[in-house]
């Protein structure tokens, strides 16, 4: 049984939140990845980076309290927490490309069993541009793809990406509403599955080859 879109997003965000460790520097992409910040356990203090030039990004301001000089990478007003810092884009990407960001969470159009990611262009249809995504995926220590398992019923986890790539072989983990996959040199390992699904269902909805270990866990959300 495939959870509906809202539940799917909640499952994904909750599961990824559990990957964050105390003290880590984390960059969350626009959209679904942003939801992860809602589920970080209280005892885990992570620092959010925004590639337009900030660490220590806080929640959105209350209505009427917006400061037009403090925005996130989506251009939306946000807040900065005590101990945060602002900097220019060259320093922001020195942090990103230089391996100082512990985890980046991004959406995907396609991802494949070699850890390739496509999320910035559908030629002839949608060309938003890569923004900071290519640098984030190459530079962050751990790259987590956050996406619904299928798009209109079609698999998005492929043997080989068909869309132009964002980066080659950089994805470490894929989290969908159905499962958690780890990208390894041998291929994709099915680590956890959602309580209401089965290995069979996941196989049917996935084009990529999956390595099925004996000790698959239930997704802990």
């Amino acid at each position, binding site marked *: 049984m495939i959870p509906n879109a809202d539940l799917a997003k909640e499952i994904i965000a909750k599961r990824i939140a559990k990957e964050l460790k105390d003290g880590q520097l984390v960059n969350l992409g626009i959209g679904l990845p942003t939801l992860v910040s809602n589920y970080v356990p209280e005892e885990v203090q992570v620092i959010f980076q925004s590639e337009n030039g900030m660490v220590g990004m806080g929640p959105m301001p209350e209505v009427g309290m917006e400061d037009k*000089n*403090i925005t*996130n990478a989506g251009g939306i007003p946000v807040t900065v927490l005590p101990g945060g810092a602002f*900097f*220019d*884009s060259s320093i922001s990407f020195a942090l*990103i490309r230089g391996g100082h960001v512990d985890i980046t969470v991004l959406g995907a159009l396609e991802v494949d069993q070699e850890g390739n990611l496509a999320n910035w262009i559908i030629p002839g249809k949608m060309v938003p*541009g890569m*923004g900071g995504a290519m640098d984030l995926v190459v*530079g962050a220590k751990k790259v987590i793809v956050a996406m619904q398992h299928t798009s209109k019923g079609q698999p998005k986890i492929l043997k080989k990406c068909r869309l132009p790539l964002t980066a080659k072989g950089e994805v470490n983990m894929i989290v969908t509403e159905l499962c958690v996959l780890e990208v390894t040199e041998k291929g994709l390992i099915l680590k956890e599955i959602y309580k209401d699904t089965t290995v069979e269902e996941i196989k049917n909805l996935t084009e990529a080859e999956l390595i099925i270990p004996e000790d698959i866990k239930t997704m802990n959300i």
Partner: protein
Amino acid sequence: MKKVVDIDDIKPLIKDGMTLMIGGFLACGTPEKLIDLLVDMNVKELTIIANDTAFPDRGIGRLVVNGQVKKVIVSHIGTNPETGRLMNEGKMEVELCPQGTLIERIRAGGAGLGGVLTPTGVGTIVEEGKQKLNINGKEYILELPLKADISLVKGNIVDEMGNIFYKGTTRNFNPIIAFAADTVIVEADEIVNIGQLTPEEVMTPGVVVNYVIKGGE
């Protein structure tokens, strides 16, 4: 060497066909009054180097909508449908560049470097037509510097020598483009006397700034 001028004094500097760098990230930290001036002057065939094309009614987006732009070199156009439309109709050239690579190319231009090697884009269409080098077993793309005729910078507090202090996330591309153009024009929220910014508060040294104009309220 009086740098603070009236916005009308800027007009003679800006000409059709020029390459401009413009500060801002989705219009946060973009000099809107200088954009007004460009729209009013209706200068044409501009090449714009910036992070993005913002929104149809804000920032750099307004120049796109007004048909003044021949080419943009940016990392993102998704928030401005007009950019995509003009691109698809062949009316405007769009060179997409990863954000971290774009800012390094501008920095290289301003710092006199001949280029930088980046791992970003290796194995993607970004590497097409570019030289690749293998350094200690890892592949890098050689990315070349960018320079402009004029940089349009937005500063929050600017002193009469052109020293700039940026608030919040308005800094973004501004301090980097301020090094990479023949002429640098700063739009200031607030202009202060010399000495009101301490030497530690200055984020862009005024020595690279040619003109300061007063921005909107």
